[in-house]
């Protein structure tokens, strides 16, 4: 288990968090590459089904930000 790494799926709002993730890149910040971003137009678009589907695909964590 010592090498276990969580797999995280994130749903980011196009207008804020997605832009922030871009800015993290522009500012050359670093974070672990265990994350896959799905861009959504607004967190209002978020459906519980997306979260369940992500978990069913094996995600260890789902992060919704907006």
């Amino acid at each position, binding site marked *: 288990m010592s090498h276990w790494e969580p797999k995280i799926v994130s749903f980011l709002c196009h207008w804020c968090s997605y832009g922030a993730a871009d800015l993290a*890149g522009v500012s*050359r910040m670093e974070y672990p590459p265990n994350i896959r971003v799905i861009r*959504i137009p607004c967190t209002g678009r978020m459906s519980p089904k997306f979260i369940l589907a992500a978990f069913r695909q094996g995600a260890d964590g789902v992060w919704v930000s907006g």
Partner: protein
Amino acid sequence: MKERIKRETRNILNEGWDGVLGLMNRWGQIGPYLFRDPEELEDIEIEPRYNLAKTIQLMLNKRPDLRIAAVVRGCDVRALRELEEMGKIKTQGLRLIGITCSHEQAEICNCEKPIYDTLNCTGCWKCIEACKEQAIERVNVCPILLPSEYDVGLAKRKAIYIPYAQAVPLKAIRDSEHCLKLAGVMDCKGCETACMANAILHEDHEQIDEIEVGSVILSPGFEPFDPSKFDNYNYANHPNVITSMEFERILSASGPTEGHLVRMSDHKEPKKIAWFQCIGSRDLNRSGNAFCSSVCCMYAIKEAVIAKEHAGSDLDCAIFFMDMRTHGKDFERFYESARDQHGVRFIRSRVHTIDPSAEDDLTVHYITENGSFESENFDLIVLSVGLQTPPQVIELANKLGVELTDGNFCKTDSFEPVATSRKGIYVCGAFQSPKDIPQSVVDASAAASAAGKILSDVRNTLTKTPEVIPETDIVGQRPKIGVFVCKCGINIAGVVDVPAVTEYAASLPYVEYVTNNLYTCSQDTQDTMSKVIKEKELNRVVVAACTPKTHEALFQETLINAGLNKYLFEMCNIRNQDSWVHKNNPELATEKAKDLVRMSITKVALMEPLEEAELDVNQTAMVLGGGISGMASARSLSRQGYETHIIEKSSSLGGQALNLYHTFDGGDVQKKLSKLVDDIETDKKIHVHLNTTVTEVEGFVGNFKSTLSNNGSQEVLEHGIAVLATGGKPLKPDEYSYGKDSRILTSLELDKKFIENDSLIDSLNTAVFIQCVGSREPDRPYCSRVCCTHSIKNALELKKRNPDMSIFILYRDIRTYGEREYLYQKARKAGIVFIRFSLNNKPEVNLQGDQLRVKVRDHILHRPLEISADLVTLASAIVPNKDEKLANFFKLPTNDDGFFIEKHAKLGPSEFATDGVFLCGLAHYPKPIDESIAQGLAAASRAVTLLSRKNILMSGTVAMTNPSYCSSCGVCISVCPYSAPSFIPEDDRFFPGRAQINPVLCKGCGLCVASCRSGAIHLKGFDNDQIFAQIFSLNEAV
């Protein structure tokens, strides 16, 4: 440049190349010549333009074994590339040496792509030291280190640098003063060697362009006051005394400490921070700035609250101030919550000296309000520096012949708040007067409106219509996806294995074509892309590169040029969210890139061509409210060419301005108001409807239908936009014995007496003004903004008429912001007595027989004081004219105080979230005449951005219902913030009572889609199947 060409060509010949093709002056004529001997190169010429592509083609075709170099311009390079693509030339044996074109040359050639500036820069940062941690690994290209202006000297930058992370355009610039090469110190070529886009041109020079314009808007801004000259504050000597600007950078995530709150001397986390207000403001003696900078109180509170958020609530924050000036919308509430919830200490005291003490700490001594003497230690002291006009702006103003005020701000008139003293030149922002963001934004729109007014005749005369390329019908076609993977120089390719990603993409279903590019965004790649799409008949495109936020529109344009619907596109972010953030983990970054590409491909396969709804904008405007801001708005709209209707519920135009005597800058309100009313009444394009109310509103942006009701008769007005200028009114006080005696007046009632030249005014000996009557109270926790200035102005007027009169102003904080502060200074000089009271110890007004007696506790003597007055003026609050029906018609929100809530508190102060509806005047927040007029102009300006387009294409990514699934529950209608869904009318033939969505109003947020229990709503471009496709293709990823 000639010297560089000589040097480079000489090196090439020395390296053993067969020759250099260039220009030579022989017998007075300049023509092509193949240089073979380095000695001859002394005679090489680079002017005039002489196209060599054809010569090169001939030579290479005749002697394919030759290895030659050619000195060519950008147009030649493009021609050679074309020839190579057509297979007419082979360039293996060819080496190119580029010549920069001069600006003049580009103009002579009418060149669209001249190479004379940094157009080629892609903002890859390669030329700059990329980051602090990577300094050793990455080539530290530029050897120069200078204090960064953006980080106010707290961090360093190079002589070639991108000013800040959000710069537009995000491109590197060079500091010509400090660059070794540009300054002629040495032949440094660090950045030139590193740049892969050939964007660095040492020969680049300053150019002077002449542009003919009909109007100029000045928005040169301010500079923060430099407190170095105050040796008593030790700013220049002590690292832990900093300015508020420096503190902003320390709090910022992109700042020198990445938002970690530490002090500069030892990088220790401070436990106690103090702010000193009015540094370089309200201080004529030492700083020369007599005005109030308007914004510092609020920013200091904000900084204190954010500091506590960063460092935890045990951080002690103390703000030393004179008057707390939180006169902006919702600012008073923020002040109260900073004090009561966050525990920020507010100390009313002006500290004289900051003494350095042990361990880099700082000691201050001060006297409290109670008169006790205190000493306190702080870890860090922030000087809240004021805003002032920089000397170069003063110089500019002098050059332009624009008059300045005593405080060196641009001189304007209350009734023309953005017009300078010179016709056609307008002003906005902190150069007009020190101000915050919302007011600057209002001003900016107002200045645009004022300029638009004088330019309305030439509107759209310089526009070009783009060629429309017919769209290919792809319906029913199997997806044929093209994938373009970008290297972004080494930005992506330096971390992610781009060839591996490209190869992987080629293995995925429906992928027809895959390639990678050095810079996918460059113009030549765009042309190639467009060609490939057509040739390979691609019907879906994925670009794996940077971020859709900056580049989606560019690539969509390429799709349009290739005849593809622009929504058949998906961008995959493998730079900002991959290579840049995982630079130490290239393997996993490559895996991530593959996953992201796969997710994008599965999504794009499901994309459909989308239509963009077209909206016709009715060219008529409706302004609700005939007060001063409504009239200003209407006048601006009509002068910009639009029919405008003013709807006024009372029987006359003018609103509250009818009750006002003078503006703060001494303007006669009645005289100027009657001129404005006259302008409105004689304007043929303005239709005034008095005694009229709106009883119904139908429709939406561009197509409103309002029912106007006038004494029972009804009329329908069709209009494209609406401006709400419904105004406010004075609160009728229920305290201080108001209404019990004719000598107790409100501020407006006193103005009325001035206007009417009432004899009462001349019989007065003692007058008392009481401030904050109904404002800043638990019931109305906002500041009415205008009352301090108004009372002081009226007090001075009384003093002018009778210099012997005793006048007392009882106040809580004097809020004469900006250059209104001069009035406060003048009043104190004139002997007007200011006595401060607190909310829990308010003055009392009593009638004792015939006598009016005002009791108040003097804040200096700490003793009760009784004043026998002839006149008591109550500065009563401004309250909005609440009209819930009207708010409902347009679905407009109001705050707890009844003022309308604008689209965005900072960036959208004059418009609503509801499209096509705009806002100005007292309905937004209490404000004086100059700001009301500015906002009226601003509302008109925002409205014209819609009106001037006549018809608008809306986004294609909108929600759509499938009415056969709809259960008519109405959830979508209640959740939508933009009023886009509605029920289909009951008398409709198809699906009556089911939900429909107006694509014109829909912003594509997807709120309704997620909340629809019947699955009846689809969001085009982000539909369930598309998002699920991305999630399901994660399986290899997670």
